[in-house]
């Protein structure tokens, strides 16, 4: 069996680690019994008085306690669709930080409280990402701009709409330069509005700027196909996937869409058709951790490796080869596989270097993937920012050639490498206007700050992929005095009216004609609004032909990098739950442990185990990376001389959550010939300092038992229970003296397919939003008190320099023979007649016996009162933030234990619905929060009493096993053995 380990310390010397843990524990306990600290508790006469007075007063208050008078205020006129106590779902679209997702917004009594995936969307198909889940919290953020401001003073919108166009007019007439800086615009109506604005103010230059750009791909496709666009990918059609550093399951282009596609092909019952995934990368990404085979290379070697791969394929297929240095890595097994699955393979690359992308295009073209797994006709629009335009603008700005700047929802002061210089330049501008949702660096440097509505408050439309339209509709009246930027722009053009009508008008003229089924616009519009999405039926077109000369010019630039440029390579990346930093003030997002490192609240310098030994550093030691000091986190699977640091932290101007969390590493981005490169060379030096990191990695040790079961596809196709042989043995040994529990109607169960789960962490945040799970802050996370009801354990095995990685979501297992239930002295945790392990907060007295007796360590204790507590100044400490709470779930108080309830509120809701409709429950009708939005479809919930249900069939599956089943706890949660598909031979 493989050796599984949780951290480098454990791998190196597990007995030492245990010894250290024990020593720490003893020291902590000693501190509690410290005689000095006890002395201070010796009571004095005054203390006696205090206590006496207190008890008298307390008792008296209890004796005369009266309920406060509460009011019940009905609607003056109840809107037809609103039933108090019932929730409504509205279809909408999420597009922030270049990530698109079709969503349903759950609105309860007028407040959006939860985001679900929209199953109607042909792109995201009901999946969401952790960021999408967390976005509802940003609506209720105290750091949002509440009023339009001019140099810090409140002004009215009327004044804004008078003053600014006047100034713009003046600048335009003096032939001054006006720049409109936006992030990528995927809304067709918004584009039209911008065109109108450009017509109104001659010489207005529109630049799209993405904090993390894919400009290299746009440029490469322009060179190869004459079309500066990102193609759409079909991972579901690919039998062999080769990714060069593209984190397509985490952050690359459209992760939710790709995860859906990818996981559909990760089913070992497809036998030979199950996809094989190779990842060639320099740092451990989420995607890399899911790969069947992972190859570690230096990011500076990527070009050479790619060109070598190209040459080898070209040799086999009779194409032109190009002279290049010898690659450091042998990828012949990948070449073999790719050649075997021509037209069914997919090579992707995450680099922003157009030369690398051109080679990838050439490889895909040779393999006949265009038209099969890649579509260059229907292109993806989520990243349109052109690096060279942006860097030209920055140069102009710094040289004083720009007169006016309109910055819409962008933050270059924070997320452009020359941020500080940009800030100074903006402050000197004649006119600077920032449209921003919440407090941010660029807006604070501008003269005018105009609040933008949150996407849940606004109208909008999107076209993330050619021909796939969707709508954004408001689900709450704007909380603050904000206005959509489009409405403001139209007002500057002298037009009045609201943006919805503009969208409707645009759709009537431009989108409505794209279909023929409906002839009446209003009824069609209402249907689309209800569904949220509209797909144009596309006519198949011939894929463009690749321009081979583009490759030739490229190959001369692919050279090995000389060693003199620095000791180490620094790679900056986005964490999948955190993004580029725009959502940094979101406490859910901030506290979510990173999918790979399991660190929350900070970014860090991820260093390979070998490099750490070489530098003599350990976790939490500080190193100087060039000028920047960063804490070390030892990350297995990291290339030896590569240090990876996440972007999106170290916000200097933001809300309370973001400020002071982590370090800003945007300055590491290199601007080479106007293109932003996310790699740099630097020096590394150990510092004699430490910095605490909130690591959740060593939480909840499973102590090396058979927790993750795995096999390879070859074994599995020979033997159905490969890797899971012990399950049968354990099943046979189930003997009990006690009565078996009886379930008259339902027995709820959950099955998790470890093959599909990518470990993205969406379920953690979905659960947090659904179940009012508290945010507790960095210090408490460090104290191992994180409250998440569903955690994703990440295990490594084998070689620490390039380990195999396992992701395993663990929540309450709802054991039928639950160890927690029989130790509770007050019966606060009991078994229901539907197989649920019930946790009753109002009975719990906080002995924590159950926590100690739970073999899965899934029970959470409220060490503090996390609501209405200044010490935990997150969303539940203010009235605005509390609006996100789910009114169907109790907010737990101090001193009680909590844990996963399998979303019992949803079970009850659907049961009631069935009763009211006089029918039986349908299989798949009840969906816990984690299952509903899982982008990988890895979680299945259902009734084990129904032999026809999906869950019953999965429980019968030979891959099914239970966690630590040898303990005879009889869990209602099953796991399906992980089956890898490595190459043969």
């Amino acid at each position, binding site marked *: 069996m493989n050796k599984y380990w949780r951290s480098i310390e454990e791998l190196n010397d597990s007995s030492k680690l245990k010894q250290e843990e024990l020593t720490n524990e003893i020291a902590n306990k000693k501190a509690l019994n410290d005689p000095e600290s006890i002395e201070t508790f010796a009571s004095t006469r005054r203390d006696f008085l205090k206590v006496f007075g207190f008890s008298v007063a307390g008792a008296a208050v209890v*004796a005369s306690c009266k309920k406060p008078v509460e009011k019940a205020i009905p609607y003056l006129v*109840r809107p037809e669709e609103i039933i108090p106590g019932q929730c409504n779902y509205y279809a909408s679209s999420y597009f922030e930080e270049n990530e698109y997702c079709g969503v349903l917004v759950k609105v309860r009594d007028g407040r959006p409280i939860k985001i679900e995936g929209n199953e109607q969307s042909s792109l995201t198909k009901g999946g969401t990402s952790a960021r999408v889940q967390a976005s509802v919290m940003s609506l209720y953020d105290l750091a949002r701009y509440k009023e339009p401001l001019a140099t810090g003073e409140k002004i009215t919108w009327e004044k804004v709409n008078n003053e600014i166009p006047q100034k713009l007019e003046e600048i335009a007439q003096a032939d001054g330069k006006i720049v409109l800086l936006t992030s990528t615009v995927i809304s067709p109506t918004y584009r039209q509005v911008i065109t109108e604005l450009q017509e109104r103010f001659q010489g207005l230059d529109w630049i799209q700027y993405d904090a993390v750009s894919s400009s290299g791909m746009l440029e490469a496709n322009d060179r190869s196909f004459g079309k500066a666009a990102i193609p759409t990918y079909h991972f579901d059609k690919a039998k062999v996937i080769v990714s060069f550093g593209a984190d397509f399951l985490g952050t690359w282009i459209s992760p939710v869409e790709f995860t859906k596609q990818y996981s559909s092909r990760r089913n070992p019952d497809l036998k030979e058709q199950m996809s094989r995934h190779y990842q060639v990368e320099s740092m451990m990404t989420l995607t890399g951790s899911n790969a069947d085979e992972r190859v570690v290379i230096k990011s500076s070697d990527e070009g050479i490796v790619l060109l070598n791969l190209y040459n080898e394929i070209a040799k086999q297929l009779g194409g032109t080869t190009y002279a290049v240095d010898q690659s450091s890595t042998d990828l012949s097994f990948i070449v073999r596989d790719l050649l075997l699955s021509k037209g069914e393979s997919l090579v992707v690359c995450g680099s922003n270097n157009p030369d690398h992308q051109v080679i990838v295009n050439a490889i895909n073209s040779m393999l006949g993937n265009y038209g099969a797994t890649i579509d260059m006709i229907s292109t993806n629009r989520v990243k349109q920012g052109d690096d060279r335009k942006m860097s030209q603008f920055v140069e102009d700005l710094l040289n004083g050639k720009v007169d006016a700047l309109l910055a819409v929802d962008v933050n270059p002061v924070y997320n452009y490498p020359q941020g500080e210089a940009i800030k100074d330049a903006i402050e000197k501008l004649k006119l600077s206007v920032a449209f921003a949702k919440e407090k941010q660096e660029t807006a604070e440097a501008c003269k005018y700050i105009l609040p933008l509505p949150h996407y849940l408050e606004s109208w909008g439309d999107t076209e993330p992929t050619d021909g796939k339209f969707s709508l954004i509709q408001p689900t709450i009246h704007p909380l603050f005095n904000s206005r959509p930027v489009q409405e403001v722009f139209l007002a500057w053009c002298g037009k009045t009216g609201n943006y919805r009508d503009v969208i409707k008008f645009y759709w009537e003229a431009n989108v409505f004609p794209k279909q023929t089924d409906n002839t009446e616009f209003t009824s069609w519009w209402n249907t689309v609004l209800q569904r949220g999405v509209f797909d144009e039926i596309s006519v198949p077109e011939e894929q463009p032909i690749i321009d081979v000369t583009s490759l030739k010019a490229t190959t001369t630039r692919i050279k090995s990098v000389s060693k003199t440029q620095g000791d180490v390579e620094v790679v900056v990346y986005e964490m999948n739950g955190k993004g580029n930093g725009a959502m940094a003030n979101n406490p859910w997002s901030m506290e979510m442990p990173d999918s790979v490192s399991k660190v929350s609240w900070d970014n860090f310098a991820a260093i390979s185990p070998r490099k750490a030994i070489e530098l003599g550093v350990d976790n939490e030691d500080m190193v100087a990376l060039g000028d920047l000091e960063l804490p070390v986190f030892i990350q297995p699977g990291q290339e030896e001389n590569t240090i990876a640091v996440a972007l999106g932290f170290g916000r200097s101007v933001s809300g309370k959550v973001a400020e002071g969390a982590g370090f800003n590493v945007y300055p590491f981005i290199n601007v080479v010939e106007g293109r932003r490169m996310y790699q740099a060379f630097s020096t590394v030096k150990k510092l004699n300092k430490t910095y605490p990191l909130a690591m959740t990695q060593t939480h909840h040790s499973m102590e090396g038992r058979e927790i993750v079961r795995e096999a390879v596809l070859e074994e599995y196709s020979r033997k159905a229970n490969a890797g899971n042989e012990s399950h049968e043995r354990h099943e046979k040994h189930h003997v009990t003296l006690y009565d078996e529990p009886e379930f008259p109607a339902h027995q709820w169960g959950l099955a998790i397919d470890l093959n599909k789960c990518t470990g993205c962490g969406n379920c953690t945040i979905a659960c947090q939003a659904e179940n009012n799970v508290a945010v507790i802050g960095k210090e408490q996370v460090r104290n191992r008190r994180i409250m998440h009801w569903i955690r994703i354990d990440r295990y490594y095995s084998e070689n620490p320099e390039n380990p195999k990685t396992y992701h395993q979501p663990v929540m309450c297992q709802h054991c039928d023979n639950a160890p927690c239930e029989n130790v509770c002295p007050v019966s606060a945790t009991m078994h229901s007649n539907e197989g649920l392990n019930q946790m009753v907060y109002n009975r719990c007295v906080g002995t924590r016996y159950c926590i100690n007796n739970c073999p899965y360590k899934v029970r959470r204790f409220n060490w503090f009162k996390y609501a209405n507590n200044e010490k935990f100044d997150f969303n539940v400490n203010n009235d605005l933030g509390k609006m996100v709470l789910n009114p169907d779930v109790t907010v737990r108080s101090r001193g009680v234990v909590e844990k996963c309830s399998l979303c019992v509120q949803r079970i009850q809701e659907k049961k009631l619905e069935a009763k009211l409709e006089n029918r039986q429950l349908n299989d798949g009708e009840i969906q816990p929060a984690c299952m509903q939005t899982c982008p990988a479809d890895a979680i299945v919930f259902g009734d084990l009493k129904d032999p026809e249900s999906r869950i019953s069939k999965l429980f019968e599956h030979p891959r099914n096993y239970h966690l630590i089943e040898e303990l005879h706890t009889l869990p209602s949660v099953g796991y399906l053995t992980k089956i890898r598909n490595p190459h043969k031979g």
Partner: protein
Amino acid sequence: MGQIRGICRIVHSIILLVLLVDFSVVAAENPVDNDHQTQKKEVIKDGKRLFMGLLPFDRKHESCVSCHHVVAIDTFSWYPSALEIANLYHAKADKDLEKVLMEPMGNKMSEVHQEYQFKEEDVKAIKTYLDSLVVDNGVEPKPSVNNLFLFLFLGILITLSLVDLIFTRRIKYRIIPVIVLLACGGYQAKMLMFEAKALGRSKDYAPDQPIKFSHKVHAGENQIDCKYCHNTVDKSRSAGIPSVNLCLNCHSLVREGSNSGQFEINKIHQAVENGQSVEWIRIHKLPDHAYFNHAQHVGVAKLDCNKCHGEVEKMHVLKQESDMSMGWCVNCHRETHVNMGENKYYSSYKEQHEAYARGDKNAFTADELGSNDCMRCHY
């Protein structure tokens, strides 16, 4: 010795506390006068006398206060209180009040205000008096001696008996302080226990509502179905307090009630005109950790509203009929039979359903199907 001094200090501090509270009450009532205010005070005084009937304006009729009470009263009255009238006419002119008094509108008011004759200055004085009520922020209900004082008093007795028992020893028969101690302690314990048990419960709670809405008139005399107004009761968690526009379904025509005349019904129209909904006082409220769904009980189990809410159709003032304690819920679940034949959902309970179909066991209670499981209500 130190201990004695300590206990003496306690007694001192308690006395001091009581004195302090008294003093602060006196201090708060000390107004600053000037000429204008003195004059106004005179007018208010006259108005008050008129209102109270001390200066009779008209021997034939009863004084204002006989119907429009000034102090909070325990009994229910259909007539608007002085404060309510004051609030309504505060922003209006004296003439308006005079007009209403001299030419009463509506049957009810015409009947009770028949042939009232007022002098102009009398109306003015009454109006000024009424305005003063508004300025003074209304009439506070009299404070009653509540359990707090009793509890504290018992506490003092306990302290004193302890002091005597251990230190001063003035009482000859040692048994007396012991008895006092035990009795007081026992009574305190009893108070604590009962109050703690009733904590958060509010059986018989029947607060005055902003509109004297009578369920007896609507559901009893006029036989309006509960679900006409509480129309989400069979489909939602909340039964739904009717929105104001629903009242107007009838009250756009029914402008005068048989009991309260136009005064109360006018409040609905005022609410609509002001765009501000009626702020009812909530009576039935479960604690936050208990989940209750009306749809399950009314929509599925087809329970009668009276089962929990009592004979609402006989209540002028709505009160909470049951204590809504957990024991009350659980007992009802134990006694109430589920009609398994009627709802197809219950065929999921295979064994029970078969038994039911065979007629082996005619009835299963809600409890037997699991309705008393913790997580049916607590999550």
